[in-house]
């Protein structure tokens, strides 16, 4: 693992990993939003790639994808966007979040080469389960890219054990069934699931899907090593769409204020 992952792993904070969509509402906004998230304390960044058929996403991220598609954002451009982020001072690990078809068309070999050249640290493919991922897993491991594993409350115990053990970067625990999006309630038995994941994992165990408030996030502070917020952030970006295009400085201020209001006071 590289230096960026090392400092992610060694952090003693409760890790905040935000998700934003590349090109939403435009490339420059993505850069400034990423830097703002880093300033607010993000431990890593998930960068989504717009896709026509995002079957693991709810309406908020679907709309963000449509906006990104409107900006002609592609997987290849998202990867090269990461090197621009590096030039502008982004130091945290960046994980590309892409559906498998986009990766197939670019080519898995080409992806890992480009990822390495542009300072990408990891990859998350929501529609590529472990069973179908052996080739990509090998390609990623040759280039020291973390292929992030997702585990769900419905994952069988022995599979959870195996995936937790082999996880790279961090282990992504899905908080509840269903697609991405804001939720008011979480599943019973979630802490037992997180506990089981944490027992075997050699990397931080993060919880995601549906987290949208400080109160919700704090619920998991004892049972996980960090959390992922997507839809709630993307929703805020949607509400700031116009300002992000015209009066970006002010929009970024408001965005940072929103992020601060979401985050728990770090106490670990």
């Amino acid at each position, binding site marked *: 693992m590289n230096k960026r992952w090392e400092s992610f792993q060694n952090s003693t904070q409760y890790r905040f990993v935000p998700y934003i969509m590349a090109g939403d509402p435009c490339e420059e906004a993505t850069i400034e939003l990423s830097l703002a998230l880093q300033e607010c304390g993000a431990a890593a960044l998930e960068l989504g790639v717009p896709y026509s058929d995002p079957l693991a996403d709810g309406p908020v991220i679907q709309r963000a994808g449509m906006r990104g598609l409107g900006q002609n954002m592609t997987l290849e451009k998202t990867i090269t966007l990461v090197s621009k982020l590096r030039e502008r001072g982004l130091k945290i690990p960046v994980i590309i979040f892409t559906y498998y078809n986009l990766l197939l068309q670019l080519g898995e070999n080409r992806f890992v080469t480009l990822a390495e050249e542009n300072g990408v640290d990891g990859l998350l493919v929501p529609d590529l389960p472990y069973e179908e991922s052996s080739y990509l897993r090998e390609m990623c491991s040759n280039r020291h890219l973390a292929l992030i594993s997702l585990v769900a409350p419905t994952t069988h115990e022995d599979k959870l054990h195996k995936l937790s053990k082999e996880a790279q970067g961090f282990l992504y625990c899905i908080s509840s*069934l269903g697609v991405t999006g804001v939720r008011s309630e979480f599943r019973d038995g979630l802490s037992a699931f997180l506990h089981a994941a944490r027992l075997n994992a050699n990397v931080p165990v993060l919880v995601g899907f549906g987290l949208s408030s400080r109160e919700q996030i704090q619920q998991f502070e004892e049972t996980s090593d960090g959390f992922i917020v997507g839809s709630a952030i993307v929703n805020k970006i949607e509400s700031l769409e116009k300002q992000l295009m015209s009066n970006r400085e002010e929009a970024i201020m408001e965005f940072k204020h929103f992020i601060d209001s979401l985050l728990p006071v770090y106490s670990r």
Partner: protein
Amino acid sequence: MTATIVPDHRGRYGEFGGKYVPETIMFALEELESAFEEAISDPAFNKLLQKELAIYSGRPTPLTLANRLSETNGGARIYLKREDLNHTGAHKINNAIGQALLAVRMGKKKIIAETGAGQHGVAAATVAAKYGLSCKVYMGKEDIRRQALNVFRMKLLGAQVIEVTSGSQTLKDATNEAIREWVASVEDTFYLIGSAVGPHPYPKMVKRFQEVIGIETMEQFDVISERKLPDAVVACVGGGSNAIGMFAPFIQSDVPLYGVEAAGLGVDTNHHAATLSKGSNGVIHGSLTKLLQTKEGQITEPYSISAGLDYPGIGPEHAYLHDTKRVTYEAVTDQESIAALKLLCVNEGILCALESAHAVAYSLKLARTMDENQSVVVCLSGRGDKDVHTLMEHVEGVEAE
């Protein structure tokens, strides 16, 4: 001839197939696969399935020699496998009965389904009513507008029709939305897929529940004609369920098989649904197959006058049969299929579905290249009542020009 058994244990047809779905539903696919394998090896289940197909759907459906059509057209004799005579008017019910019986056997009380033209939605709503299951049908907003009659039918049958407003608001988006709903409700809900698409074991299961078409055809042909096997078998292909069911028992024979895709306004325009002629390898709705897409991998919107063929992907086994050259895939335009539909109407008194008309159109071309002592069997997958409105618009539009 290939002797490879497909799919393999991973649900692969050569390089195609597989399970490209979120981790949340992987357990449900495994559960479904073992329940399905167990059911089809249980004589009691097969007996029940056969009984339901007979007393509820009216099987076996006839194999009809289209005398006057064959004479008018010239060349080989054309036989029609009359799936249009099934309950609800299309082959879709075969699969819906099979999957509903499986859902009941698995103790599921809720089913969800996707639909484009509404034929599978109607079939799903029908079996839900018959077997006492609750039913939600996902349908694109655009299709709801185009197929108002079927929407009303589904509601009459007690199903809830859910309007899908994401993406292009058609079948591919309805399927995405049904999968999203399944991810959320997977613990108590059975996803009743309507075509030979989706993640393993769906393509295998849909083929198993549709192969009754081909099996009956083989037996009937042997009885009513002087020859053991036909000289060609033709079926239309959208996702490919009627075709894979018709082809199933013939794949191991030498009979030439033809799948007919929708060429829409022409395969050289941007308005077609000719996935195998024009598509490339990719993943759609949980399966690696051929699909219509941009070079970056965004899935593009297909077009056909026939809503049932209007799908940007195709079942993975068809992609495999195409690449191994066991089946020849051709494409037929809107115009050609309407001409064939009219010809069948006036010569045989049969109004077939626009989907099936694509198969009829190609079989007419093919028959003309063959001898009159040869035979072509066409799968007449459904009846055309649902298309009367579309036909009226088209025929009157043409006359007004």
